[in-house]
């Protein structure tokens, strides 16, 4: 088995949260799908609620402290990311966006990402396509084709071809396949020199 890291970012605010519930189902399905590709996921779940003050502080001071520093390092080092947000006012939550505002702009480049969202009704489902997918495209992430939306109704629906369960399985399979195609992620040292000074002098 090849060890890979999977970071799950969940922006749910209530406890218990349906966003966290969806995140849990997604990563469990991803772990199961990965084993079929001979990949063992080491899973880290990041609850943005716990980092809310740290994120605001980072926006103000320009550097992350404590647990946020660890969370950002985990995202940068991750081989895959699952990102789940509740829908707030027709888009991702502000906390979710603020977290990605402080993620290093190169941290997600070529990284497989599964996007998912929760809301009260299915009328919000295109938030995944008009808000999350473009944001991750900007970050040059590789967003898997299936994005998973869960409305209140979905949690009560049974099993079948078009149910939430089926979408989770499909998306998790796509994520696992993308990870299996890639080399493990290596994080560049931000303090490493990339050019000799003679080269810099030449301009």
């Amino acid at each position: 088995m090849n060890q890979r890291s999977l970071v799950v970012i969940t922006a749910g605010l209530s406890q218990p949260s349906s966003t966290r519930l969806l995140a849990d189902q997604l990563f469990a399905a991803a772990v199961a799908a990965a084993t079929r590709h001979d990949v063992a996921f080491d899973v880290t779940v990041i609850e943005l609620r716990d980092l809310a003050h740290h994120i605001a502080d980072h926006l103000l001071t320009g550097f992350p402290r404590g647990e946020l520093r660890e969370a950002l390092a985990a995202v940068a080092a991750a081989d895959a990311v699952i990102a789940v947000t509740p829908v707030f006012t027709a888009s991702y939550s502000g906390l979710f966006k603020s977290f990605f505002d402080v993620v290093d702009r190169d941290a997600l480049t070529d990284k497989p990402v599964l996007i998912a969202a929760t809301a009260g009704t299915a009328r919000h489902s295109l938030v995944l396509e008009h808000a999350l997918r473009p944001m991750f495209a900007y970050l040059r992430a590789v967003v898997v084709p299936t994005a998973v939306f869960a409305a209140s109704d979905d949690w009560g629906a049974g099993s079948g071809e078009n149910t939430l369960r089926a979408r989770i399985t499909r998306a998790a399979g796509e994520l696992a396949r993308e990870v299996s195609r890639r080399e493990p992620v290596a994080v560049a040292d931000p303090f490493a020199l990339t050019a000799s000074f003679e080269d810099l002098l030449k301009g």
Partner: protein
Amino acid sequence: MQFGIFSVSDITTDPTTGRTPTEHERIKNVVTIAKHAEEVGLDVFALGEHHNEPFFSSSPTTTLGYLAAQTDKLLLSTATTLITTNDPVKIAEDYAMLQHLSDGRVDLMLGRGNTGPVYPWFGKDIRAGIPLAVENYALLHRLWREHVVDWQGKFRTPLQSFTSTPRPLDGVPPFVWHGSIRSPEIAEQAAYYGDGFFANHIFWPASHTQRMVALYRERFAHYGHGAPDQAVVGLGGQVFIRRNSQDAVEEFRPYFDNAPVYGHGPSLEDFSRETPLTVGSPQQVIDRTLGFRDYVGDYQRQLFLVDHAGLPLKTVLEQLDILGEEVVPVLRKEFAALKPAHVPEAPTHASLVAAALEKDEVKA
């Protein structure tokens, strides 16, 4: 080891009174602060350069020239001189002039400046910050060392048969520190020339300073200027001191909570943990400052920020008294006892002149 203060020249409302000093008042206060730094026995006063409100210090050499006339021993420096948006020819001229007037009591710290809008005001682009710093300094370095310079680069008009006047005092250019928070290219630049490296070391985690200084020391040795521990390192630091630590915290908290840069963000306690900020008793400041050595090694210059965030003049002068009476004498003694003999002191005009003479004698 040299000890001193550096000012960013912010004009900030005192949050405890709601009063904002006028520009005139703040400028005069900074002069009083610098002169008092000399009176209490500090070695260095360094002044920032900014071209936007709420800062006043657009013209540091004017202020430093005025101070040179009113002080005897104080070493005058900058924090920082913008090597990106200033014309290197003008820097060469201005600081050589200041060097003469101050009888060599001047060095300067170069920085890129991080305020985006300032660049276009001077016809530059912040995205070219590193190439500007590299090219401009390469020219500045030559202007102070070669009598007649022919030069062509990307960012300014070419020079043909140009001589920067006045020539540096005694033929020895002012010592230069390169300042950066986390751009490895600038640590590399300082190492390449065998110049000093100054880590801002305020408002940012100490881990940045540790990495940058380690890189600078390693590259300083790589370029053949000496052993890594012979490289010349300066650090910033931010302190607020009262005899009782709880009094310091209570008095400083409103200034901290409303300060430019970090105000309305993390708590004083969190920020003190994450950055080198120390608010407390003289002993706490002594212990924390001595601890800087644990992650940067023996270093040559320590500057403290004591006059920002709207602190009134009286308070700042009291801070200087405490630094001069209770903190710096202990730090001098402790650092000196720890420093091995082969680690140099920070260069001064006298030491640079002596080194130049020695070099000439070896040649002869």
